[in-house]
């Protein structure tokens, strides 16, 4: 019983990590290539979830909704890049933070204006509903397994894209020297728009996948955005590999902390105090990990070369 619980919690941590990776990958890609801090990344996550919920409600198919979330988030990202972000590349980070923070407010209030303040309904597709038995575990939700699968696919796809394709070569070149790549005749503006749309699509995908598990509502992106920033700070800003490792560390730390801390504290404290103190400590745990990583590796675990 104890072993199966521990296994299940490990899997839960893995799943949370994979979900965070989808968010963090886009964020770190955009930062790595363009040097841009994009606070509005959480809004693109929300766009993905809303698009999926609305389209799934209209068509009755989660899968069409999922496709719509990719398209809408990528389109929203490309439009935002073209209208706003483009003006910010040469500005310092404070201007970028201010402008993208303004975008959060615009997206949130815009979504409220269109969809209202009440959460939307989005459910798991029947194909992935229910739980399946796994070796050592009584039953595990199929949908969460599917999220782990999607995350692994995305990680592998990104690896192929960046190390094996021409676009990936340009992205890497853009990361190390953007003036030089422009001088070599690469259309850097289009490259930036493509990268931004790609990062946005990943955020939209995460939003749609997670929206089916959680509630689709205005403001859903910001808590995830904070975690995604923790992930890329731990992993090393600008590094996809760092984002993957950082996401798994954060996912596992958070889940195992919530699961283990209260009973461990229960050995030394009375039960009800252990519950609240343990819960508070668990909430802090990932930030403690981040502080430790920063103390010993100020540029993160896998610093990008730039």
């Amino acid at each position, binding site marked *: 019983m104890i072993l199966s619980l521990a296994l299940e*919690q490990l899997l839960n941590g893995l799943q949370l990590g994979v979900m965070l990776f989808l968010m963090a990958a886009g964020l770190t890609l955009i930062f790595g290539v363009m040097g841009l801090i994009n606070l509005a990344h959480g809004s693109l996550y929300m766009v993905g979830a809303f698009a999926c919920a609305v389209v799934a409600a209209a068509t009755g198919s989660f899968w069409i909704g999922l496709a719509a979330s990719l398209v809408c988030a990528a389109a929203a990202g490309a439009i935002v890049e073209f209208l706003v972000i483009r003006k910010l590349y040469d500005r310092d980070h404070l201007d970028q933070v201010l402008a993208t923070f303004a975008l959060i407010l615009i997206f949130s209030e815009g979504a409220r204006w269109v969809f209202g303040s009440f959460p939307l309904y989005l459910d798991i597709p029947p194909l992935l509903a229910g739980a399946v038995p796994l070796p050592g575990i009584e*039953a595990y939700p199929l949908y969460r397994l599917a999220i782990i699968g999607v995350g692994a696919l995305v990680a592998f796809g990104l690896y192929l894209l960046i190390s094996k394709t021409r676009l990936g070569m340009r992205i890497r070149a853009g990361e190390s020297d953007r003036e030089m790549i422009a001088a070599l005749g690469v259309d850097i503006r289009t490259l930036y728009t493509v990268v931004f749309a790609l990062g946005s699509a990943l955020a939209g995908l995460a939003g749609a996948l997670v929206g089916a598990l959680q509630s689709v509502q*205005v*403001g*859903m992106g910001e808590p995830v955005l904070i975690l995604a920033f923790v992930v890329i700070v731990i992993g090393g800003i600008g590094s996809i590999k760092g984002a993957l490792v950082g996401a798994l560390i954060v996912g596992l730390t958070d889940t195992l902390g919530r699961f283990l801390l209260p009973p461990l504290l229960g050995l030394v404290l009375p039960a009800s105090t252990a519950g*609240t103190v343990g819960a508070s400590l668990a909430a802090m745990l990932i930030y403690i990990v981040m502080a430790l990583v920063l103390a010993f590796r100020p540029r993160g675990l896998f610093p990008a070369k730039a």
Partner: protein
Amino acid sequence: MKKFLSATTLALGLSVSSFAVAEPIKIGLITTLSGGGAGLGVDTRDGFMLAIKQSGNKDITVITEDDAQKPELAVQIADKMIQSDQVDILTGIVWSNLLMAVAPGAVAQGKIYVSTNAAPAALAGEKCNPLYFNAAYQNDNLHEAMGEYANKDYKKIFIMAPNYPAGKDSLTGFKRYYKGDVAAEVYTKVGQTDYAAEIAQIRASGADAVFAFLPGGMGIAFMKQYAQSGVKTPIMGPGFSFSQDVLPAIGDAALGVKNSGQWVKDLDNEANKKFVPAFQKEYNRLPSLYAVQAYDAAQLILSAASKASVKDSKAFAAALKQADIQSPRGKFKFNNNLHPIQDIYVTEVVKEDGVLTNKTVSKIFTDHGDAYAKDCKM
């Protein structure tokens, strides 16, 4: 002689209570209209405004502002409303932590505060105040009801709430009436959206039921994930977790869940039969608990306004305390600590014509007050 006559008419006019006192009243409605908790604030505002509109009272001005669920913002708005708008009454705050930041200051400045939802224990006991009214309940009440209900069928319950004051009040309230064993007492992060770790613990705990207090988006996320987890342990909770504002988003996963409320849509009384269709007609959706509570708060203010001048806060408070209203809840009166004494029901989530809603199962408490009233010296 003429002078004498006009003076008597004036005196008579003032003493006849059914005449509305033609005196302008300014009400400051501070509630959450943006961010994740906005659904609750929108229902609060709409319920309140429905009662004002139905009264046709032209002397009442309501100034509405959004607190974005931030205590510091709520305090700023309250200061502005008291100092520059010169409101007479404040109301509308949904969250206990915001209320604690605003209400004590407002009543200290001689303003009346009528709470439409938040009801922290701290303001119900020793620190009760003659100008602070609560039209909703005391925070513990709906949890107490579920504790009492759980005694009937369950021996070992897994209890869970977010780690903040109302969450602790919740589990305290539950345990005040529940007599069986507690399998585990788990506190989650406020605003947490992933409950996989807690669901795994529920599976391993061997509990025969789960009591979860997770309002708003937290409850939606938990219920959807629970439905997919393959864990079959029955769930129950206070009405907030399964109120009309979140049910459509949870979907069929909520069907059959037992919860509690001091108001249910199908309560058989005249006021309720008028209120529900009126709300539906005005806003094209079903009302939630929050809407009813705000509706009653507005009714209370309207009834007091017809009896006393708001400039005389003592007299106005005395008129409020009479609670001379027809509440959709049925019976309603104030306790010595100015929190309600009312009936509390256990309800079940059902589907009616394709819409998820609650129906009454049984009355669990009759004329229920709260555990803190005895510490209030009023």
